[in-house]
């Protein structure tokens, strides 16, 4: 009985993924096709990249509500750089990544210096980034990106879409960073017990801020991929991203109080949410019913998180 629970605990996310896959394969006839499944991967690649960044913040017991408008602001900046000022593509992308890091560092700075929960700090920056993005773009959408830029989001190497390659590379980097480097272990340590980590000689404030900066860069990469794939840039390009990142992190086992979870589970969780949206769409259900389903999924994930915590305490 115990071993069954252990297996469930370890592979629950794969089980959910398979369940969703099987359900929609039966319920929506056009779901289980190579074209559609590739489509899901392509459409969710930017979300996966962003979620890896957010996962780092959440593991360190932080939170980032501003991710949607970080993506939006970086997208607007890309739009201005590439379609108005005609800055070369590599330089523009580089600037985008630097801006992402800056936005992240601002989040980190507020979260650490104001000594409020990062959730509150990033709620403030969310509004700030949103405002700047709309003011800077005059609420307009930018088109006419150079072909070389759009290639990043739409092109292929062989038969594999470039955005999927970028996603895989990001997953690998995120995995290595969190599991194989001391920076990653310190992020887990911070989430596990910040005071113990500090007394263990870790500069916890620095680690927290760096986590926000690294996350900012991941989010900027996500923005580049999304802007290039859609060929358009605007402030509201990814308003739903925050919800997906957050839900995927919780679903992926990252505890609300920090610690726990791993990148691979979080990535699979993004795919589950992606399949859910796609499958429901194919079944002819509206975007609003998808909201309901995803909300229920989030509540379920939180309940499971609490249940596991309670079980842990019982064991001890």
């Amino acid at each position, binding site marked *: 009985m115990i071993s069954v629970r252990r297996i469930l605990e370890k592979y629950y996310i794969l089980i959910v993924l398979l369940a969703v896959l099987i359900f929609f394969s039966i319920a929506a006839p056009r779901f289980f096709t190579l074209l559609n499944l590739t489509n899901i991967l392509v459409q969710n690649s930017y979300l996966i990249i962003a979620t890896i960044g957010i996962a780092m913040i959440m593991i360190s017991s932080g939170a980032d509500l501003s991710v949607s408008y970080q993506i939006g602001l970086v997208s607007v900046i890309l739009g201005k750089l590439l379609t108005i000022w005609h800055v070369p593509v590599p330089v523009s992308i580089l600037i985008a990544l630097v801006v992402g890091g800056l936005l992240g560092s601002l989040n980190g700075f507020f979260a650490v210096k104001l000594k409020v929960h990062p959730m509150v700090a990033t709620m403030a920056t969310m509004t700030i980034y949103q405002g700047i993005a709309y003011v800077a773009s005059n609420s307009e959408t930018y088109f006419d990106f150079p072909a070389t830029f759009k290639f990043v989001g739409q092109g292929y190497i062989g038969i594999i879409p470039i955005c999927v390659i970028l996603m895989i590379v990001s997953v690998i980097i995120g995995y290595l960073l969190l599991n*194989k480097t001391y920076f990653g272990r310190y992020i887990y*340590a911070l989430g596990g017990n910040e005071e113990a980590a500090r*007394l*263990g000689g870790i500069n916890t404030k620095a680690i927290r801020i760096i986590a926000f900066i690294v996350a900012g860069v991941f989010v900027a990469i996500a923005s580049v991929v999304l802007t290039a794939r859609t060929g358009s840039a605007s402030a509201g390009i990814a308003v739903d991203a925050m919800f997906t990142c957050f839900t995927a992190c919780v679903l992926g086992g990252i505890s609300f109080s920090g610690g726990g979870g791993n990148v691979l589970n979080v990535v699979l969780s993004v795919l589950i949410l992606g399949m859910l949206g796609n499958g429901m769409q194919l079944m002819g259900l509206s975007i609003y019913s998808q909201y309901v389903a995803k909300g229920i999924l989030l509540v379920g994930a939180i309940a499971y998180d609490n249940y596991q915590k309670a079980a842990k305490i019982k064991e001890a």
Partner: protein
Amino acid sequence: MSDNTILSLKNVTKRYPGVVALDKLSFELCEGEVHAIIGENGAGKSTLIKCLSGAITPEEGTIEIGGKSYQGMTPKLSREYGIEVVYQELNLIDGLTVAENVCFGTEYGKIVNYKLLIEKTQKVFQDLQVNINPKKFVYQLSTAQQQLVEIAKAVSKEVRILVLDEPTAPLTLNEVAILFDLIRELKKRKVSIIYISHRMDEIFEITDRVTIMRDGQYITTLKTEETNKQELIKYMVGRELKDIYPTRSGGTKKPMLELINVTGCGDKNISLHVNQGEIVGLAGLVGAGRTELARMVFGADKMESGVIKLEGKEVVINSPKQAIKNGIGLIPEDRKRQGCLLDFGIDWNIALTHLPEISNYMFVDAKKIKEQGKEYIDKLRIKTPYIDQLVRNLSGGNQQKVVLARTLITNSKVIIFDEPTRGIDVGARAEIYNLLKELAEDGKAILMISSDMEELLGMSDRIYALSEGKLKGEISREEFSQVELLRMMSIE
């Protein structure tokens, strides 16, 4: 046993995966007696309490109370019979007043009637001769006061059986005396008390009978006045235990750590020194400012003024990181919350501080972590089946050793132990003392904060006493006496 038995457990068995927590345990409690239950950690004392409070249901056996026999208690049933448990971890609500806490769970109308609550609480306090303002918030109280509030809360509910789990652990001697007065008062009212403690002196002072448990089994029950410490320890560990303090040679005259007029966090102008190879005790009541001093030296809290010298050189310490770099280590009292990362393995916990040093371009050398983990598990005799066992699953003593290993690995020259044996059972204690001795012989300078008088006198070369944030004096081994030490610790 006799007619006035009010509670009787017969052949109670409770199994957890992999362990039998209670093994056909029988136990009887008389009316109006103070009955100690002793046993090493893991003997099953906590499980026994949980059976009484109804938190868990035993698999076999019966619990007889009030002339009825039950398979197991429920929280409601337990309450009806007047069983109240004061746990080691206090269950008060910080943000509410003392009065609200004391009256918590009793009816007090739809709108909180503070006047009534305060009157009620004052009456309880008066009866028990507790001197705490009911209007204060719980977070404003000292740990000892919180403990008294917790007991008052239990007593206010017509308690018939009061279970105290290590009640004196956070208390100082004066406060223990207050607690004991309270217990005597309760005894007069025919309340039966189950008293769980590691401290022998207290058992002989306050209890009528002692029941010894080992490995979930009932060993024996003795009349306190007819037994002695040696005998109890023998029953507890199942073997004779000689003097647990190792003989030591004493330190050198070379100062390793010097504090000059250290001020901050309530401490004023504290100057002291610890020599190489020396164990220096730091005595004082809770709230005397000992932990605060340790945390300032370690950079965990800010020092307002003063100088810290290491090997004669002045050092500036603003964070634990800098303290560790300078060769200072701290083994905090609260190992679970401040010492270890419970969800990390032993090996990773040990490697935590110096991870960057054993990494190549940020990438951690996992093999090296395993190797040194194994090395220190052997060296410090950490009991565990695996190197990567989660620290959550270790006993308090072994968690302590994990933090110590981490401190040793960073080449600490000065190690500050804050209550090194609190909550650690007798057998494991001797091991900690031996470790302290070995560390001193290795040339470390050790500063040991302790509230255990025996331990201070048994282990230290010199003892400093603190009271209300001020240094009250210093005594060396030749002048050691419990009376003198108590005099210095006391508040004027």
